[in-house]
């Protein structure tokens, strides 16, 4: 019973974090029909940013996530404005290759500057602290990251559904030309959406640095899982992304514990294949 609760909570925490990482990807995909292959690398950059802020200035990830979030917003919006935008409306593969190129650049840049070594930010305020929930031992840094991911997802969802700018984002996603006719500057919406997408991983990455080691390849697995989450959750749907992410987190955690640790990603991707075969638009897609 104790193990069950432990595995359940681990799964839910991972799921919530995957949710925030995937939300940015889902939003960009849903609004612009662009697959951002550099998404995982943005996460990696966010983690390095947080790591170096922690190392050089001594600022704890509990606070520096604000900076990494802002930095990634501008990095991502800038990549749209200067790189991705030029590839849209050309050959169908062009935006895909542009973001893929960006991901290779970012990865190799960090490899070159920071070596392939794992770096763990030590001396953070929550380091090694645990909380006991129903007999389960829960790592505090991870719990804080998960809770904050959920909060961010709610804020994002509220922003899209209820605010004026959120309406404009929805309208742009549904029919760009019609949105333009309503007076929405859709080019600015695209830049904003890319920025928000980056900000999601910026914030997620910022918090994750408090318990996860940083290395140039760290984004790969997360982006792969984010793609699965987006495909399961339906493109552009934040609640869909969250549900799918929690599901993935649980499957990973339960398969890892009750079958075998090496099987956890097999279970995740098998689930993905099954859903895509049965319901190609995803569990919650429109």
């Amino acid at each position, binding site marked *: 019973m104790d193990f069950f609760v432990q595995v359940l909570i681990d799964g839910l925490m991972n799921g919530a974090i995957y949710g925030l990482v995937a939300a940015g990807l889902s939003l960009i995909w849903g609004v612009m029909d662009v697959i951002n292959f550099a998404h995982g690398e943005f996460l990696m950059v966010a983690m390095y940013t947080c790591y170096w802020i922690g190392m050089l200035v001594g600022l704890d990830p509990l606070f520096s996530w604000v900076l990494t979030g802002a930095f990634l917003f501008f990095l991502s919006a800038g990549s749209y404005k200067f790189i991705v935008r030029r590839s849209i409306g050309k050959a169908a593969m062009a935006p895909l290759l542009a973001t893929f190129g960006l991901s290779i650049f970012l990865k190799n840049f960090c490899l070159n500057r920071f070596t392939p070594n794992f770096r763990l930010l030590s001396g953070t305020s929550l380091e090694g602290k645990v909380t006991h929930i129903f007999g389960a031992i829960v790592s505090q840094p991870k719990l804080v990251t998960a809770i904050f991911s959920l909060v961010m997802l709610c804020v994002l969802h509220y922003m899209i559904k209820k605010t*004026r700018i959120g*309406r*404009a984002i*929805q*309208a742009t996603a*549904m*029919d760009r*030309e*019609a*949105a*333009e*006719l*309503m*007076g*929405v*500057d*859709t080019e600015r919406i695209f830049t904003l959406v890319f920025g928000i997408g980056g900000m999601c991983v910026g914030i997620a990455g910022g918090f994750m640095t408090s318990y996860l080691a940083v290395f140039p390849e760290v984004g790969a697995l997360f982006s792969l899982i984010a793609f699965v989450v987006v495909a399961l959750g339906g493109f552009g749907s934040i609640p869909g992304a969250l549900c799918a992410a929690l599901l993935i987190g649980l499957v990973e955690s339960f398969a890892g514990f009750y079958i075998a640790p090496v099987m956890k990603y097999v279970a995740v991707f098998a689930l993905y294949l099954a859903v895509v075969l049965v319901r190609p638009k995803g569990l919650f897609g*429109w």
Partner: protein
Amino acid sequence: MSDVILRVSNISCYYGQMQAVKDMSLEVRRGEIVAIIGANGAGKSTLMKSIAGLVAPRRGTIEFEGAKITGAPANRLIRKGISYVPEGRRLFANLSVRENLELGAFVEKDNKKIKDRLDEIFELFPILKEREHQRAHTMSGGEQQMCAIARGLMSAPKLLMLDELSLGLMPSLVEKVMESVVAINKKGVSILLVEQMVQEALEISARGYVAQVGRIVREGTAKELLDSDEVRRAYMGM
């Protein structure tokens, strides 16, 4: 002579190599209803899109209220008072009628004004009040068309451009929609419309232009065009 609100001079538009609009000119005077009629592929919609800012003309100029607007993007033009209701309605399908209308007033930041306009619109189209919280795509074609016109009005435009209003509507509805166009015009909005239902369109218009394979081949008062044998034969099957 009443003053000209929109003047299009010798514009040409291309899609790649294909020229869709060849040297077209027209004008709309303040308070007028003007119809552009013609068959499919005559370049009518492209002409409308170039006025609305969705297609940039390669040659020629477009002036609105005396200022040059050639090549300005659509999201700017609606702020100047040009509202375009596109062919096929293009409602935001997953949003409610209310949300669609509110998006129509996206350029207006004063909530009080938006509220007033909503009331005005619900008076003009009572059916939309009933459907307020329904998703746009669940309504009938006629209701959707009214919603599209209403959305176009929410920015309180000076010039309302209506593209193929009658498309997919049954005849009795076409008449109803045309009546509401007249009602809108009476409130002081100038109207430019593109129609394949030639008779219905000319009956409510002051003047008309006949478009044929990318050119304006004829212009005149609505009455002249309605009485012209050529127009009657070509477009009304008489």
